[in-house]
C-alpha cells in the first residue's frame, strides 16, 4: 500500500536533553491529492465501509502510531 506518511530529518543539537528522534514523520492524506472526486470510484461493501470510515478506498488512509519504542543508547 502506498504510504501517506512522509519523513524528514530534524536538526540534532549538541545540547538537546532528550535522546534524539532522528527521523520524524507527518501525514499527507489522500484529500490533498484526489482533486474533485470523479464519478464511479470503486467502493467498499457497506460493512467494510463502516469499519474503515469511508465508502471509497481512494479516500481511505489508515493511521498508526509513528513512535518507535526507545532504543538503548549505543
Amino acid at each position, binding site marked *: 500500500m502506498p504510504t501517506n506518511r512522509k519523513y524528514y530529518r530534524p536538526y540534532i543539537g549538541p545540547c538537546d536533553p532528550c535522546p534524539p528522534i532522528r527521523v520524524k514523520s507527518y*501525514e499527507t*492524506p*489522500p*484529500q490533498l491529492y*484526489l482533486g*474533485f*472526486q470523479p464519478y464511479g470510484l470503486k467502493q467498499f461493501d457497506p460493512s467494510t465501509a*463502516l*469499519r*474503515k*470510515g*469511508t465508502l471509497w478506498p481512494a*479516500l*481511505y*488512509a*489508515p*493511521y*498508526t*502510531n*509513528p*513512535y518507535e519504542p526507545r532504543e538503548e543508547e549505543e
Partner: protein
Amino acid sequence: MWIYEKKLQYPVKVSKCDPMMAKFLIEQYGGADGELAAALRYLNQRYTIPDKIIGLLTDIGTEEFAHLEMIATMVYKLTKDATAEEMKEAGLGAHYADHDKALFYHNAAGAPFTATYIQAKGDPITDLYEDIAAEEKARATYQWLINMSDDPDIIDSLSFLREREIVHSQRFREAVEILKEDQGRKKVF
C-alpha cells in the same frame, strides 16, 4: 428542525477501564477543534453562504453531532464505574471536584468551551478554508489521541473519527471548487 435517532453512528466499544484516556478524549468534546465546535461552526455558516453549499454544511454539521455522541459515549464508558480515588489517580481529581462524573464542555487542559473557537467571517471562501483547516486540525488531534492509547477498541473508534475528517476535508475542498467554477461562469445564485 432536527430529529434525534437512538443509535450510534459507529459501534463504539471500550474494553479497558481507563479514566485517564477520558481526560484526553474530552479535547474532542469541548476543545477548539472538537466535535461541538465543528457542528456549531458549520451550521452557523449556512446563513451566509451561497445556496449550493448549504446542504453540505447542514449535513456535515449534523454528522459532527453524531461524532460528539461517540466521544461522549467513550468518556461515559471510561469513567462510569471509576471510584473517586481512581478519578484522582487518573488526573481527573480537579474535574471530579467540580463535576463528579458529569461530562463538561472543556478541553483536555480544563479550559471551558468558548464561542471564540468558531470563526465566521461571512466570506464564503474564507469560511470554507476555515472549515478545511478545522477538519485537518481535528484529524491531527485524533492522531495524537491514537498515539496515546493502547486500547485497540478506543483506537478503532478514534480511527473511524479520524477518517471522517479526511472525507469532510475532501468535501469542503470540492465546495471551494464549486464556488470557483460558478464565479468563472458569472452566474448569479
